[in-house]
C-alpha cells in the first residue's frame, strides 16, 4: 500500500467523520464543526496528491492555502448567520427552525 493511498484513506476518514456529524448533530454550531472537519480532509487530500505524485508541488500547496482561506470566510459568515438566527428565534436547533413562516418570522 503506497503512502498516497494511506493519506487518501486518512482524508477519507475526515470526510466520513464530517458526514456523520452533519447528519447526527442537532444545532447549527455542530454543523459548522462538521463542515470544518470535511474541509480539512479536502485540504489534506490535495496536499497528498501534490506531494506524492509527480504533479506540481507548489500548485497543490497553494490550493490547500486557498481552501484554508475559504474555510475562514465560510466560518465568518456562518457565525453571523447563527447570531441572526439566535436573535430572531431564540434557538439554533436545526429541526425546530427548519419550518419558518416567512410572513411572521415565527416557527410553525
Amino acid at each position, binding site marked *: 500500500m*503506497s503512502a*498516497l*493511498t*494511506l*493519506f*487518501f*484513506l*486518512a482524508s*477519507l*476518514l*475526515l*470526510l*466520513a*467523520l*464530517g*458526514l*456523520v*456529524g452533519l*447528519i*447526527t*448533530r*442537532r*444545532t*447549527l454550531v*455542530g454543523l*459548522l464543526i*462538521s463542515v470544518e*472537519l470535511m474541509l*480539512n480532509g479536502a*485540504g489534506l487530500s490535495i*496536499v*497528498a496528491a501534490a*506531494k*506524492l*505524485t*509527480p504533479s506540481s*508541488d*507548489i*500548485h497543490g*500547496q*497553494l490550493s*490547500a*492555502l*486557498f481552501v*484554508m*482561506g*475559504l*474555510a*475562514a*470566510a*465560510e466560518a*465568518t*459568515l*456562518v457565525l*453571523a448567520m*447563527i*447570531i441572526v438566527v439566535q*436573535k430572531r428565534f431564540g*434557538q*439554533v436547533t436545526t429541526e425546530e427552525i427548519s419550518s419558518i413562516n416567512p410572513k411572521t418570522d415565527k416557527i410553525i
Partner: protein
Amino acid sequence: MNQIIETILGFLKSPLNALDESLSQSLPDQSYAALAAFAFYCLVVLAGGLTAVLSRNLVRAMMGLILTFLGVAGFYLLLACPFLAFMQLLIYVGAVCVLVFFAVMLTKNSAVGQEQNLPSLSHIILGFLAGLAPLAILTPMIIKHAPNYQITPEPTKTSLLGRGLLSSDVVPFELISIILLVAMAGAVFLVWRKKPDKKPN
C-alpha cells in the same frame, strides 16, 4: 521569517527526529518511523474527530476539533510542508476555532445547550449508515486505483510559494482576498442592528 518557522517546526518535530534517529540505528529503512508517526497522527485525528462529532457538550466538541487540526498539521509535517502545517495551526486553531467558540458562547448552549437531548437511537444508527455509505464506495476505489508512486516528499522553499502566489496563481489569490472582504462585510451587515439610535452590535 523562514528561520523562525524552521526553529518552531524543529521544536515541534524534535520528538519525531529523535524517533527517527533511534530507529535509523537499528533499521536500514526510515520508513518505519514515518509509518509510526503516521499511525500516531491517525489516532490523534480519529480521537479528535470522534469527540468533535459525538460529544454532547459543544465546548468539548470544539476541543476535539482542535485536536483534529493538530493531527492534520502533523500530516502536513510528514508530507514535508512545514509552511502549510504552520498555516494550519495559525488559521484553523487560531481563527476558525475562536469563531466557533464565539458561536457557542453567543448562542448560550455550551453546558445546558440544545445539543444535550440525544437524538433517538434509530436516528443515530441511520445517520451513521448514511454517513458511512460514501466511505464504502470510496475506500475500495482508492485502494484499487490510487497510483503507486514511490516518491519521498521533498521540502519546498517558502519563497517559491510566495512567488507562485504573485505570478502563476495571482488571480485566485486576489479573488480570495475579495471573498474574505465580502464575507467580512456580509457578516457585519447581517448582525448590524437596524435602529439608528443604538450602538451597532
